[in-house]
């Protein structure tokens, strides 16, 4: 398509800066100086140098604000500053997967039988407890190590935490539901 709109109109710095700023904000990809000229400034007579100066001016304007103008491989684009990433992460909460039965059983055993070693958990569950399970529960601040059991190998002892109680709105472990005697469960 031959652009029939090329007019080579003059444009003052203020308008040029507004136009470049708007273009960078609405484009769905980074914009190079060439792209800016071709897609947004085709009607105006502007040198590459002038566009570059305008970009530098915009970059200075946005220093220390909520967004910043960065140069990436294919051009310039507005991005959020990296120091805000943590705060902005909340919006994009990914829904976490449900915990596996292994995790829940391990947690239950630690809660009800604390302090307890990994070996003891494995004995009761009859299967190995992966390090990932312990890590998940530790990262969640629901379990902690409280010492070592004085048996060969001195295995770590696990117990539940205050945060565990807080999460389940319990004031103490006493409030954990009393389990039915095993004979009842069997029925």
């Amino acid at each position, binding site marked *: *398509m031959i652009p029939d709109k090329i007019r080579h109109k003059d444009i003052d710095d203020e308008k040029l800066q507004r136009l470049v700023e*708007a273009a960078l*904000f*609405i484009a*769905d990809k980074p914009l190079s100086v060439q792209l800016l000229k071709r897609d947004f400034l085709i009607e105006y007579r502007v040198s590459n140098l002038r566009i570059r100066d305008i970009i530098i001016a915009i970059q200075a304007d946005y220093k220390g604000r909520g*967004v910043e103008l960065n140069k990436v491989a294919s051009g310039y684009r*507005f*991005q959020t*500053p*990296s120091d*805000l*990433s943590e705060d*902005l*992460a909340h919006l*994009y*909460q*990914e*829904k*976490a*997967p*449900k*915990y596996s*039965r292994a995790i*829940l*059983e391990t*947690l*239950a*055993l630690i*809660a*009800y*039988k*604390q*302090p307890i070693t990994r070996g003891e958990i494995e*004995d*009761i*569950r*009859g299967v190995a407890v992966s390090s990932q399970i312990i890590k998940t529960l530790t990262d*969640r601040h629901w379990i*902690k190590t*409280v*010492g*070592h*059991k*004085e*048996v060969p190998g001195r295995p770590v*002892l696990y*117990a*539940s935490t205050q945060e565990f109680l807080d*999460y*389940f709105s319990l004031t*103490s*472990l*006493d409030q*954990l*539901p*009393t*389990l039915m*005697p*095993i004979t009842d*469960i069997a029925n």
Partner: protein
Amino acid sequence: MSDPKTNLSSMSKEGPSPNAGVMVQQVLPFALLRGKAMVEKPQDLFIPPDALEVILEMFEGPLDLLLYLIRKQKFDILDLPIAPITTQYMTYVDLMKDIKLELAAEYLVMASILAEIKSRLLLPKQAVEEDEGDPRAELVRKLQEYEVIKNAAQNIDQLPRIDRDSFIAKVELAENFIPEVANTQVDLAELVAALQGVIKRTQAFEHHHIQKESLSTRERMAKIMATLKEAKNNQSYCDFSDLFTIKEGKQGVVVTFLAMLELIKESLITCIQTQVYGEIRVSLPKS
């Protein structure tokens, strides 16, 4: 972009307006015929058959067509001249029928309404007015009501619109951005169910059902160990008496004592008395 489209938009803005008045219908190109915009409807009502279908599509229905005829001839809606309007309307309808255009039923219904109004207006004036008032009233009201909406639709079309008059600003996230993973929600019932599952599968709990007392003892055991672990970093032991909280009363003291006995039995803690009747020091076993 194709040429006719460009023509269309420029015609709609600058093309000659055949009629006065504020209605926008007239300034729209009337039809596209072989790529040329027809801005003016032929005065003599001769419509090239090719264009008829397009013309019909220009109208949103019989009310729209009637409004066009009224406005075009600068008639006043309130003083609707039924006779000429009906004649013109019927000419259109007959033309459309002639070329066997599939005519929307609404156009025929309107034709019969017009015919009925016309015939009632021919009745002696007195009888009509006393009975039901002006037979045109209902049609006039409908035309007015439709014109209001037609106008409102044109106004909405002029409102600033996203991607036409205004563009949404958006920015990318920083490279170091990692979406937060929400914490998995766990229900207390799930936890109980999990333990019950374990119990079902194992005999480990067979002889010692978990009960309230043992629980608080176990909790205290964990607490003592945590206290001692902390102490280990400073002075490596705790005074026996420091492990009791007087405020908890007799029951608390008993629970703590039972917990300590259990811990000693399991060799999880050691107790040392450095002098007779002296303070008992409790510590984690030396590694």
